[in-house]
């Protein structure tokens, strides 16, 4: 796949003596949604942190829109303008309102004019259905609302690729849905997404490709119908029988 937006080849990552990723390769074409599932500690979160250079890695290649991440001369700012990331713990800036959270990066990092950024920030909050919470502080919002502000904050950088790191894992069950609806909406608009998730139904409905990782390797990957309907590997079968 020459036109893949994200290409990972033979990625290795170790923390001290422990090798957490042992040669992972995957490709995500533009507009696709890739879901990465697998047991805890299988290196899923580390894998997507390697994509936007939050975690350095020793060996292998990660390319986003042709930008090689494993390059000592990497322009991290250039990479991060293309890659948005949403975290399990939302990580909103608690001293700023929802609107300011969305506006900070475009203004400070991209140096875009305030009026333009503010109009766009309002539009983004409307998109995640929080236009009435623009002036609320993160502490005044529910988990699901905070997570949607975090998505809007990432979108404000106009990324080409969005990374989601177990974004619903810390949420109350009743607010999981509102966040998943927002992500699905993004996917339908053609945003390229990589999700680390435990939401099997969401993966089944939205993903183009599902990857199952265990102990630092991709055990199996397939389109969702095939992956969930007819898993091949024993480890995949065991895992799916436990979580479904």
């Amino acid at each position, binding site marked *: 796949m020459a036109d893949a937006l994200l290409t990972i080849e033979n990625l290795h990552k170790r923390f001290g003596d422990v090798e957490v990723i042992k040669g992972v390769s995957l490709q995500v074409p533009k507009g696709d949604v890739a879901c990465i599932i697998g047991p805890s500690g299988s290196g899923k979160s580390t894998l997507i942190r390697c994509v936007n250079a939050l975690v350095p890695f020793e060996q292998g290649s990660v390319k986003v829109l042709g930008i090689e991440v494993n390059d000592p001369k990497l322009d991290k700012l250039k990479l991060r303008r293309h890659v948005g990331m949403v975290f399990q713990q939302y*990580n909103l*800036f*608690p001293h700023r309102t929802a609107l300011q959270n969305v506006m900070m990066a475009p203004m400070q*990092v991209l140096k875009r004019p305030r009026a333009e950024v503010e109009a766009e920030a309002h539009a983004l909050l409307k998109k995640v259905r929080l236009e009435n919470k623009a002036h609320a502080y993160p502490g005044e919002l529910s988990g699901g609302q905070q997570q949607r502000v975090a998505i809007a904050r990432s979108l404000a950088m106009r990324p080409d690729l969005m990374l989601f790191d177990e974004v619903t894992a810390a949420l109350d069950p009743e607010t999981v849905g509102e966040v998943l609806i927002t992500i699905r909406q993004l996917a339908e608009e053609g945003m390229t997404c990589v999700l680390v998730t435990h939401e099997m139904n969401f993966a089944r409905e939205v993903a183009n490709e599902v990857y199952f990782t265990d102990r630092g390797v991709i055990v199996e990957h397939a389109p969702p119908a095939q992956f969930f309907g007819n898993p091949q590997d024993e480890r995949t079968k065991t895992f799916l029988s436990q979580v479904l």
Partner: protein
Amino acid sequence: MSDLPVFPKLPAALRPRARAGLSFALPRLTIWHGFGLTALLLICASVAQAANPAPLQKSIFATLVQWTPLLLRGFLLNIEISFLSMAMGTILGIALGLGLVAQTKPLRQTSWALTQFFRNAPWLALLFFMIYLLPYHMRIGGLHISLPDWLKAVVGLGLPVMANVAEIVRGGVRSIHPGQWEASESLGFTRNQQLFSIILPQAFKRMLPPWMNLYAILTTNTTLASIVGVNDVVTRAGQVLAAAGNNPGLLAPVYAYVLLLFFIYTYPVAIATRRLERRTKVRI
């Protein structure tokens, strides 16, 4: 945490109403705590007098009133020294603290060494060091600058303050959840933008209580300046005793009076610190 003594609460009818603005309740202090301290002062005085029956020319109270302006002028110098060393220590300490969390290793190590040295040295030793190290006069170009002892004391006390402020800054920055660094980094913020727009504004609130606590400690430690010859309140207390004929009966009351001055000044700071601590704890 603060280690202030806990006083029993007065019944509601006797409690002075809290005034808006001055929320750390000076009035409550004067009525109840002032009473306790005055009692302590009088007990000390009577014990001293009982031990030494030489008659006083004047009552203790009259003597204290007579010398109050002199003592207050000395106390004012203590406050000035505390302000200036706190200002100096805070400015230098913030710079040093940012060095402690810097990414460049040599800078971090140098800052660490400086911090450890000045934090673990006795304040009095640093004070002596500065008094003898700094010249009496400095000439910069055609400009003569004289360095009085009290100014040297400011420098001597400012150094340990600097090291302690540096530790407060480091602790404040470290107390912010690593997710804040991760999120801002993934949005493309540079290290300095992260520090000044995201981390420090949050850390500031947590740094304020220990910083105020440090100020209270510094204020009491300004009395060390009397040992190196600064005309502060403790030096003046000695002068008052000499002027009153070195009557041993006055010794305890005069020093108790000095203690009272410091208490009245630093206790509100301590109360405000404790309130801030409580507030930041609830909010974060």
